[in-house]
């Protein structure tokens, strides 16, 4: 999926996690985004996408396990941590770092923060992002 193309003209919240099905991501990072989907949409967000280094089969399964269906929250693979590596925000070895970004309709990045410690969910969490919108 060509993000740069498909997301033109849309307001996107992009969240990166170190790994699907891992403790921090599953317990602390993902659920608040699921719970706050409507609030995010009320603030004009068109798409919320979660990426990790895992392949797209695993990401799809992770979404289903968390009972996310439809197009609210997209689970995608940052294949080869391409996106994370190119922006200097990769985490441990082959995994993505933990960060969140808001991309406005005109393609500008209005928020981009990476966790100082990948074990924490602060600046990359749903609350922090909501505050910025």
């Amino acid at each position, binding site marked *: 999926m060509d993000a740069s193309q498909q997301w033109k003209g849309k307001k996107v919240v992009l969240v990166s996690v170190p790994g699907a*099905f891992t403790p921090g991501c599953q*317990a602390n990072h993902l659920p608040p985004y699921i719970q706050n989907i409507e609030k995010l949409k009320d603030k004009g967000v068109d798409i919320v996408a979660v990426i990790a280094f*895992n392949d797209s*089969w*695993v990401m799809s*399964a992770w979404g289903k396990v968390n009972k996310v269906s439809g197009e609210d929250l997209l689970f995608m693979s940052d294949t080869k941590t391409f996106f994370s590596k190119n922006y200097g925000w990769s985490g441990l070895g082959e995994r993505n770092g933990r960060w969140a970004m808001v991309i406005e309709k005109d393609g500008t990045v209005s928020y981009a923060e990476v966790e100082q410690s990948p074990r924490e969910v602060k600046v990359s969490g749903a609350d922090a992002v909501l505050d910025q919108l």
Partner: protein
Amino acid sequence: MTSLKVGDSFPAGVEFTYIPYTEEKDSITSCGSPQQFHASEEFADKKVVLFAVPGAFTPSCSVRHLPGYMEHWNEIKGKGVDLVIVIAMNDAWVMSAWGKANGIKKDEILFMSDAGIKFSRSIGWTKGPERTGRYAMVIDHGKVMYAENEPAGDVTVSGAEAVLSKL
């Protein structure tokens, strides 16, 4: 890299990572902590069926390969097998979740990670640069009794029925 054949000893120093079953981490949204599994040591005094799949949650592996082992589990155990283990390149968390997603909670079939496809690479049975091949082995007290890698896309020599016929 040396291939593994019937009659060979299972190599020393082989390790996988996995998350052992615990009651508290029973649910699929409850993630445990990966641990090392010292395969070579563990296999020394047991009869083991080890099979590898290119990827957790992928179509063939989930629909055609794993279910066969689940269906034939009783018969496999009936032939004196102590451990049935499935490995893939996915990390231990993903393997643990795949097990739970298939309703396997305890230790009927152990789901482990061939981290870095180290073991699969050492025997030359990989698929592309990152994935394990699709293969199955029977190791009896450290000796390889059966070892076959799928030549094509189907599940034949690496499936539960093929393995059963060799036990």
